[in-house]
């Protein structure tokens, strides 16, 4: 097992150890989330922490940031032992954390968010002008000239991330923990973020960086620490390793990270499952969120929609589910024109959406795994006028088995599952409605490599069984391996369409950033 240089001393290239966590252990009733993990944080460097969901990354970060307290182990800050009883104490010591689910107040302005609970006051009155001025300075330093008076709810995800960073900077952080900062960002936003991280690093800030995007880790990281099942699996300078090494340490074996699917064969049954013609979705205040979008999807085909944030991908799904009565154009499912069908009506006709935001739109957190799975098709289990528990159990267990949902017991609360398994529960729920068209919006967002591969495998198998699958992702590698066809959206317009075998990352990125049709023209019956 590779170990990093022993803590406390300066390493060869001059970077200095700022924080050492020794033998950190965190026990919860019944489980050990962290088991004697050593973690060294270098100043002026990006310290990457990686591991599958449930490996203990979040727990370790919460301990470092004072949100949780370790069962045993000690922390040395600049060589002297520290113990944080609260996040405030950690912040005082210069440790800031940006959670994956951003902790911003959408109803407050940027500057109010940055100075929340630390308002600059004179005589008890908040000095808004001063706060906004300071915020402007911070934002300029981050090269993001946003208006400090803008409400956070009006910002894009990427911009909200910037606000979080500005907030941390305003507290003079020396150690900044970022938990999956890019999970909701587009390529351009990610690049901007990396730029900022580079600046912070140059200024001597130690970044602790958690992500599931492995390529990204090696681009940005200086030191990589891998956790597995709550234990330290390996640690190494980033330059000495590659993606395969990380995956091997993460899962404890080598894995085929990019799996290839045999493109859907041209079927005799060529009638499209889904046909969208000239879909327009007007935007409040003029213009269009979706403009003249047309697409066709056949049985057994996987069509991916690629695009930057704000390209209209999620809105396209919302239109398909009938959520925008103001949209115009034609949507046909199995040749039947959809008009005013409710969501239930559309589900019954054979279409089902796995929404982007698992927590907000996909799951009922207060229900068990079992009840989440059967939620969308309760009628299926009705005997006389009540639910047949026996039949429910049978189908729930079949789903858990088929999708390999890792749960000790289907009666467990859904929140006790890892992100990947929660996503599988949402998919299981969708499959129980027996859809012919399955729509997945960012199905792999925020889940670990292993679970991602499983989700793709599930998608492949479903397509082979004849399901038409429409999915949205902002991760390029997924575009190259999974779908039969990729359609690119940019600012609400289709700017490209590519067949699986004629697809390059460059084309996609180019089309996603453009306003005109750049894709190679496709024959009408492209799959033949």
């Amino acid at each position, binding site marked *: 097992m590779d170990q990093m240089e022993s803590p406390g001393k300066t390493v060869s290239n001059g970077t200095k150890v700022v924080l050492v966590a020794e033998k950190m252990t965190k026990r*919860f009733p019944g489980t050990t989330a962290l088991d004697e993990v050593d973690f060294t944080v270098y100043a002026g460097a990006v310290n990457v922490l990686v591991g599958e969901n449930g490996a203990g990354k979040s727990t370790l970060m919460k301990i470092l940031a004072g949100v949780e307290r370790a069962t045993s182990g000690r922390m040395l800050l600049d060589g002297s032992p520290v113990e944080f009883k609260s996040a405030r104490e950690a912040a005082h010591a210069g440790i800031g954390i940006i959670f994956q689910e951003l902790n911003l107040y959408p109803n407050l302005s940027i500057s109010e968010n940055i100075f929340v609970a630390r308002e600059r006051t004179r005589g008890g009155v908040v000095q808004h002008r001063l706060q906004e001025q300071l915020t402007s300075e911070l934002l300029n330093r981050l090269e993001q000239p946003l208006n400090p008076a803008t409400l956070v709810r009006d910002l894009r995800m990427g911009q909200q991330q910037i606000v979080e960073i500005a907030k941390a900077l305003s507290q003079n952080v020396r150690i900044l923990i970022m938990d999956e900062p890019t999970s909701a960002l587009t390529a351009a936003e990610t690049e901007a973020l990396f730029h900022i991280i580079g600046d912070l690093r140059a200024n001597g800030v130690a970044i602790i960086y958690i992500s599931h995007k492995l390529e990204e880790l090696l681009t940005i990281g200086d030191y990589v620490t891998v956790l597995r099942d709550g234990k330290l699996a390996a640690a190494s300078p980033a330059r000495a390793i590659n993606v395969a090494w990380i995956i091997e340490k993460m899962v404890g074996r080598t894995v085929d990270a990019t799996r290839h699917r045999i493109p859907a064969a041209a079927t005799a049954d060529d009638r499209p499952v889904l046909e969208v013609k000239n879909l327009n979705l007007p935007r409040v205040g003029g213009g269009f969120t979706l403009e003249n979008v047309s697409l066709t999807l056949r049985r057994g085909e996987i069509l991916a929609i690629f695009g930057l944030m704000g390209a209209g991908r999620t809105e396209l799904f919302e239109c398909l589910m009938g959520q925008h009565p103001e949209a115009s154009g034609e949507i046909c499912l199995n040749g039947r024109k959809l008009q005013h069908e409710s969501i239930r009506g559309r589900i019954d006709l054979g279409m089902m959406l796995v929404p982007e935001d698992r927590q907000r739109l996909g799951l009922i957190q207060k*229900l068990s795994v079992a009840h989440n799975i059967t939620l969308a098709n309760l*009628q299926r289990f009705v005997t006389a006028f009540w*639910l047949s528990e026996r039949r429910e159990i049978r189908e729930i267990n079949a789903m858990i*088995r088929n999708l390999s949902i890792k749960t000790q017991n289907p009666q467990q609360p859904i929140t006790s599952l890892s992100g990947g398994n929660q996503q599988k529960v949402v998919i299981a729920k969708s499959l129980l409605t027996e859809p012919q068209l399955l729509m997945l919006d960012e199905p792999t967002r925020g889940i670990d490599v292993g679970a991602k*591969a499983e989700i793709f495998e599930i998608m492949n198998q479903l397509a082979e069984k004849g399901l038409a699958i429409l999915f949205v992702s902002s991760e390029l590698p997924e575009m190259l391996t999974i779908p039969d066809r990729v359609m690119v959206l940019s600012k609400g317009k289709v700017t490209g369409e590519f067949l699986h075998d004629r697809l390059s990352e460059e084309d996609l990125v180019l089309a996603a950033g453009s306003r005109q049709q750049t894709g190679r023209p496709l024959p009408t019956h492209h799959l033949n």
Partner: protein
Amino acid sequence: MPTTLDSPAAPVLSKPSGLSVGVLLFRLRALIALFVLIGVFSVLSSAFFTEQNLIILVGQTAINAIMAVGMTFVILTGGIDLSVGSTVGLAAMMSGLLINQGVRIELLGVAIYFNIPMIIVICLCLGLLVGAFNGLLITRFNVAPFIATLGTLYIARGTAQLSNNGATFPNLVGNPELGNTGFPILGAGSILGIPIVIWIMVVFAAVAAFVAAKTPFGRQVYAVGGNERAAELSGIYVNRIKMSVYMICGLCAAMTGLITASQLVAAHPAVGESYELNAIAAVVLGGTSLSGGRGAMWGTIVGALVIGVLTNGLVLLGVQEFWKKVITGLVIILAVVLDQLQERLQQRLALKRA
């Protein structure tokens, strides 16, 4: 991790095995509190644990419990219904009006009198109507449940007072010639030695518990309260569910109104005032989360019994009315505090996978 669609893991449904005794005791706290209270009062007052007193106690509880059953459905969806007390009054006045005055048709100079079963049905329908009005405000006009039902509270109470110019409909015994006698039986009669009121509570509670736990409707109520948007995207008609729970709540309140009027053999327009608070207290004591999505019908019944035992026991002990209020308030607050503790405990258990 490559996977196949037919891996052999075969989980089975059973009770969660990791459930510690502590958590279990915590969950059953309302029931434990009930037994403790019964024990304490039995020791302190020889009159408490007697068949006669227990029947009185359960009878008193039943009125609140029936309302609380409806309230539970509403609170499970994350809503609240402040209008139930007024609906009690309105339904009571309606029964009084129908028995004593009938429906007058001025034009023909006649009055139509209904028999008692018909009157019960009409009053229950009135409850449904009030509930539908609440539901309409909440689903169609997006009024917050608190405000919508607060408005209905005033409207229904005002209407109850208007119905007889603020006066009571006395002596609701009916007239044999009109064929509308027998109304007092509802509140005073008994079957197999047990008051009808208690039977009604048992039936309402049993049906409600079954509906909540075993039917698609019940499951959807929990889902709507747990996460409205996710429920909607799962094809649940959220508005229909909300509409239904307020109608159920109105129906339960109307039933309570009928029972109260029957017990008093009179319909007073102020009857039911502040009953909504008792109902909400019973639901909360029973462990149903005010934010929706979590709770159970049996808990509500236990909650109503806790309030009933407390009231009855303190009366037997000769505790001053004012102290009774203070103690009841403290018990309700304690229940919510414990509820929060349980939530935290469960969150910490869930966090172990973070």
